[in-house]
């Protein structure tokens, strides 16, 4: 199993796994602190009630649900990128596929937590199963997301199995006994016999295809939670595919940022090159075009027909939310198209900056889908309480948002200290002879 090239690669990654530097300790400590603050905010919300959030009877869902859509989207992108690239046997995927898998599973664990934060009676959560009604899109969501988590966990596990076995067999790494034992258990006795290789390969192929399908379903169901209602701005047939595209788009952005960070921190310049940024960047460009097309199509039909409530919503978006609308639906679409579209602008840093813009734009895009719609219901809001008129998110909601991002960063950090952030075993597989770089 552990041949020379494999060992050389593992030696390269051994320091990550062997020890944690002081800066990394401070970083982890900081993230744990943010998460602890999140738990405090959660305590405040549970003890004092949802009155501590900015949500009220009109805007009943705020940035929690935006975060929910956002993290689920990021997760979906990881699944789609790793799944498709695996199935297409794209050779360039190898150094980045592990990151995509990590993103998938971590974001998938964070996302549903945000929907729980919207729930008024967390103590009654078991009712979703005990009294579940299949007619409700929330039940569809419960089924879809739990299937997704299960499928993605299996997919990720299959993907890291060979590396776990490699670390177990690798003598050049100093590990405490408990860790070595853990690797031995997790490797499930994989030693790389031809039969084992064949089975693992087939299982990974099946799971890659499954994960893509499940992710499409999950994200469509998520969109239907909005579009099955009669709310102007949500009641749209386009929402299923629109959300799917937006999800992969935002996930590509996160992918690029994560690649940039790991490349810098672990000095992976020889593995992750400009080629990878450009390839994922081109994926992002295509998705930007699709996303822009869906967005335009959705708002054009609303605006052109000018049904009274659609018109109210459009007016609100172009008045109260003008700059956010411009950022999310113009800058967020055009910037990746320009940066990646012109070869001269395609530097690693430029692509990463546009990826950051894309992430922000997509988060705002979800905010603009959720909040303004709830602020412009069929019956005009006639209220003298400012909180009931317009949604103003509070510190509790922002601290919990920060806690989610911190958990994402923490899990990525800790994950990379346990499993090499680059798929060591796949890297040493010889590329199939017909392989060509498909995008560049």
């Amino acid at each position, binding site marked *: 199993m552990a041949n020379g090239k494999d060992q050389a690669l593992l030696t390269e990654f051994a320091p990550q796994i062997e020890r944690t530097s002081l800066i990394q300790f401070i970083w982890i400590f900081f993230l744990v602190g943010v998460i602890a603050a999140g738990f405090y905010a959660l305590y405040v919300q549970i003890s004092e009630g949802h009155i501590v959030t900015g949500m009220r009877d009109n805007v009943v869902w705020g940035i929690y649900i935006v975060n929910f859509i956002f993290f689920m989207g990021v997760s979906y992108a990881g699944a789609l990128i790793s799944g498709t690239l695996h199935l297409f046997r794209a050779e360039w995927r190898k150094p980045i596929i592990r990151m995509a898998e990590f993103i998938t599973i971590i974001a998938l664990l964070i996302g549903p937590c945000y929907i729980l934060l919207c729930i*008024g009676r967390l103590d009654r959560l078991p009712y*979703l199963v005990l*009294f579940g009604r299949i007619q409700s899109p929330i039940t569809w969501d419960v089924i879809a997301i739990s299937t997704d988590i299960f499928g993605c966990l299996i997919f990720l596990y299959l993907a890291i199995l060979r590396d776990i076995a490699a670390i177990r067999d690798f003598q050049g790494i100093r590990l405490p006994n408990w860790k070595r034992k853990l690797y031995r258990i997790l490797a499930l006795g994989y030693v790389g016999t031809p039969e084992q290789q064949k089975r693992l390969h087939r299982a990974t192929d099946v799971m890659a295809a499954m994960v893509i399908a499940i992710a499409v379903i999950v994200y469509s169901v998520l969109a239907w939670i909005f579009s099955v209602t009669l709310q102007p701005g949500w009641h749209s047939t386009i929402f299923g595919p629109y959300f799917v595209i937006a999800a992969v788009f935002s996930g590509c952005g996160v992918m690029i940022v994560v690649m940039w960070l790991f490349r810098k921190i672990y000095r992976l310049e020889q593995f992750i090159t400009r080629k990878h940024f450009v390839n994922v960047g081109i994926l992002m460009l295509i998705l930007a075009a699709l996303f822009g097309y869906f967005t335009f199509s959705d708002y054009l039909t609303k605006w052109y027909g000018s049904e009274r409530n659609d018109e109210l919503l459009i007016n609100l978006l172009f008045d109260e939310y003008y700059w956010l609308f411009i950022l999310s639906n113009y800058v967020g679409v055009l910037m990746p198209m320009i940066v990646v579209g012109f070869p001269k602008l395609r530097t690693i840093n430029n692509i990463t900056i546009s990826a950051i813009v894309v992430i922000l734009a997509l988060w705002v895009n979800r905010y603009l889908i959720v909040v303004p719609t709830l602020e412009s219901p069929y019956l005009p809001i*006639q209220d003298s309480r400012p909180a009931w008129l317009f949604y103003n998110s509070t510190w509790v909601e922002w601290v919990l948002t920060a806690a989610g991002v911190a958990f994402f960063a923490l899990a990525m950090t800790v994950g990379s200290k346990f499993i090499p952030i680059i798929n060591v075993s796949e890297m040493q597989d010889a590329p199939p002879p017909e392989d060509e770089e498909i995008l560049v």
Partner: protein
Amino acid sequence: MKRESDSNPKKSSRRDFLKKSLVAGAGVVAAGGLVEAYLDTQAAESGEKVKVLTTDGEIVEVDKAWLRYPRVSRKESRKGIPGRKFVMVIDLARCKNARACVEKCQHGHHLPKDQEFMKVYLLQDTEYTAPYWFPKPCFHCDNPLCVSVCPVGATYKRTDGIVLIDTQRCIGCKFCITGCPYSTRVFAWRHYEEYDEDTQPYSPEASSPGVEGTVSKCDFCPDLIRVGKLPYCVSACPMGVIFFGDLDEDVVTNGAETFQFSQLIRDRAGYRYLEVLGTRPSVYYLPPVERQFPVNRGFDGLEENVSKRYENTPYVKKQRRK
């Protein structure tokens, strides 16, 4: 009857009811049938006496204000009152935003000021059409989206047409609030002291006591209907704006006047709000023609926080410009 609290002054809280079961006589119950009741001897006396039959077969005279009717269980509340299909008619020509319906409803359901099951809007359909006051209860739709989307069956449609919420079941996901196109549902964003005022056991038919972190809304007061009374809003309205009745019996009443429902809707061109949405409401409106009050009367005597609600309506803005 002897007041039990006289012999035991320690137990003088409102929680202590005389547990003896009673069957209230027809004098109390307009509909005639036998209704179970019990006595709350701590309540203030009204001076008005009624004759009731005890479970022992005795006829005794008690103060009318002492009578209490036990609420139906959560399970029972899912069934609906047999042979009924309730309907409400709101006559917009009579409404002057007196808000008696809102206040009586809040009092009856032990609601805080923050929560209104009945809301009164000032609507004006277009710039040149007339503004009017628009009392809006729950429409108890026959095709209720709120019921469809509930993941745990906490909100349900009954055989008598009423849509209720079981706040002991509700998980507070608020999906029904976004599902309702009429902004009818309210959420308990925190615990309110008013909830504690209700000492009776919870029943979805009473929508009380409220529960923090759950959704509630107008319930058509089936607890009152069961004892032959009209919903709080109907009996409170000084103008007789709100009519309540039975679609199958084809009759609606506001307590003082009774109409044949089909004829009233036909003669006064009754309609349902936002029919285009296909929710099939059980609440009908009579258009504001030949009004009894000018719209401006609706601003008289409003509390500041209520009058401020209408500041941003096109009508008030236009008035202010003049």
